[in-house]
């Protein structure tokens, strides 16, 4: 009787049909209501635009000596002054952003790839696979990260690729643990069993069924990793381990380090650029976390 009613298309409302917002739209809406996150996002967009389009507009060569060294900001039309070789700091900041952001993103991508692989395999297969992979993860966790990266870069040369690798290889453990935790949780859910019952093989289960559902916390972790990698690159550069052929904010700080007491502004400006960028990334990451975290969602 009741069934017939439903088959005749009787009121969806009486049958408890509830229209709920799509999770993606809900996430976007939650993010948009978080003013700090939106501000961070806007700043980040500006930083990226300036770094990637700026060099075509502000064409002064960041390597060229344009004026006497350590000109204070504003002198002779150089807005931020010049560095220890008399190179334009504005040009350096605009041109240096590209490498900084690229290294940050590439290193974060590398650690996300390693982390997801380790986390997914250990969380999915359990048993000895998990034992081995998690022991390796713990090994990298207890490694003194800065020291290890410095050794890598010092041994194999300070090329941009090597620096990226050195940062990526020490920062993936967090992603691995988050991914494993999500896999442990999701693999027990009935829709995974249902997929198995429907004939899905292990790679399908890992990449098509579980991973997409495990992504939200991984996305947050990755966003914060970009900020971490930028800071790390700055740290390495500050210690002199930067690619001498590439202009980056970290390299600017490293180059001017000997003169930090006499001419602080040469280090302050690239430092400020890093600070603003990392802050913006953190705000976006936190905003994503709030927007993706179902516990904070109002129902």
């Amino acid at each position, binding site marked *: 009787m009741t069934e017939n009613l*439903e088959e005749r*298309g009787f009121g969806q409302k009486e049958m408890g049909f509830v*229209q709920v917002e799509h*999770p993606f739209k809900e996430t976007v809406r939650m993010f948009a209501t978080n003013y700090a996150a939106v501000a961070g996002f806007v700043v980040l967009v500006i930083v990226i635009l300036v770094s990637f389009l700026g060099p075509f507009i502000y064409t002064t060569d960041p390597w060229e000596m344009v004026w006497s060294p350590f000109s204070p900001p504003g002198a002779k039309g150089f807005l931020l002054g010049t560095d220890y070789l008399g190179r334009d700091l504005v040009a350096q900041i605009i041109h240096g952003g590209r490498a900084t952001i690229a290294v940050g993103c590439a290193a974060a991508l590398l650690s996300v790839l390693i982390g997801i692989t380790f986390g997914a395999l250990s969380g999915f297969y359990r048993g000895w696979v998990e034992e081995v992979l998690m022991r390796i993860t713990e090994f990298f966790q207890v490694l003194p990260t800065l020291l290890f990266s410095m050794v890598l870069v010092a041994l194999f040369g300070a090329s941009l690729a090597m620096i990226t690798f050195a940062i990526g290889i020490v920062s993936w453990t967090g992603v691995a643990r988050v991914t494993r935790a999500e896999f442990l949780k999701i693999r027990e859910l009935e829709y995974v069993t249902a997929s*198995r*019952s*429907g004939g*899905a093989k292990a790679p399908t289960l890992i990449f098509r*069924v579980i991973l997409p*559902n495990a992504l939200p916390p991984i996305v947050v972790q990755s966003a914060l990793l970009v900020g971490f990698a930028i800071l790390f690159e700055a740290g390495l550069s500050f210690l002199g381990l930067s690619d001498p052929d590439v202009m980056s904010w970290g390299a600017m700080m490293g180059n001017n380090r000997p003169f930090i007491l006499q001419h602080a502004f040469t280090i302050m400006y690239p430092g400020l650029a890093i600070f603003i960028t990392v802050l913006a990334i953190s705000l976006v990451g936190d905003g994503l976390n709030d927007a993706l975290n179902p516990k904070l969602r109002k129902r």
Partner: protein
Amino acid sequence: MLEATSMLELRDVEVRFNLKRIGLFGAVPQLRAVDGVSLSVQQGETMAIVGESGSGKTTLALAIARLVPVASGEIQMGDIDLLGLTGESLRTHRQNMQFIFQDPYSSLNPRLRAQDIVREPLDRLAIGSVDSRNQRVQEMFEQVGLRQDQLRLFPHQFSGGQRQRIGIARAIASRPSLVICDEPVSALDVGVQAQILNLLRRLQKDLNLTYLFISHDLGVVQHMCDSIAVMYMGKIVEESDRESLFNNPLHPYTRALLSAVPSADPSRRNREQRITISGDPPNPIDLPPGCRFASRCPMVEERCKSVEPILTLREKSHQVACHLV
């Protein structure tokens, strides 16, 4: 009566789970979730497995569907030895046996549209051409009473009953002969339960399905099933056809279960004494030597605590494992 052919035969099926090792070098304790279960399900009938939480009924269902590893025993489906199947042969056989899950909220992948959820077994098992699969999904929607304009919706846009319909559509999409229903209605409210049960019965008739129906609700079982097996702590304590079990329950546990079914008829309510069972079930890791129900049985005798009763035939197609009947 037509000659019934057995479509599913279990012999001494055992499922064990390894628990956490005691100490560094201690033995790994094992939990026997299903302990020596033998069953036979006839083609086209509905066999119920009832029992309380933790009695191993869901584990048994998963074992039959080869979704948890079986430690020992035999499972025969038609003339195929299910436990002998591995890898690819098991995968292709999965289209013959499908599963309907208890919780319609966790059994649907929240990232897939309803049509893709129903399509999944077709895609994974490469059933039919790519075009025909869409056609099939539409038919399935029709068959379970969902509308075509709901094809592209996501699970969270459906109610519990509708979600369970999607789960049923997915289960029958590959045209299985055996469908294992693991408490398919226990997460739904009563009105919706009736709709889903009627749907399951209609599908059984239309598609000639055999059901293995896991439940703890005897009212539902009476409505749905031809024969019933009662499980307690991993063992079958009584097995019978519906009539015989409901009219003449033999095992004290079955009697207690039946007396706990609420009745709408006040005269019946007073006439029948409620049998209450006190105490807790024994620790499943450290089982007592005798009957597993001995610690709670109102009729317990000395021998029950030392000698384990064996499932024996008492009446025509009515088996029970108890010393006292």
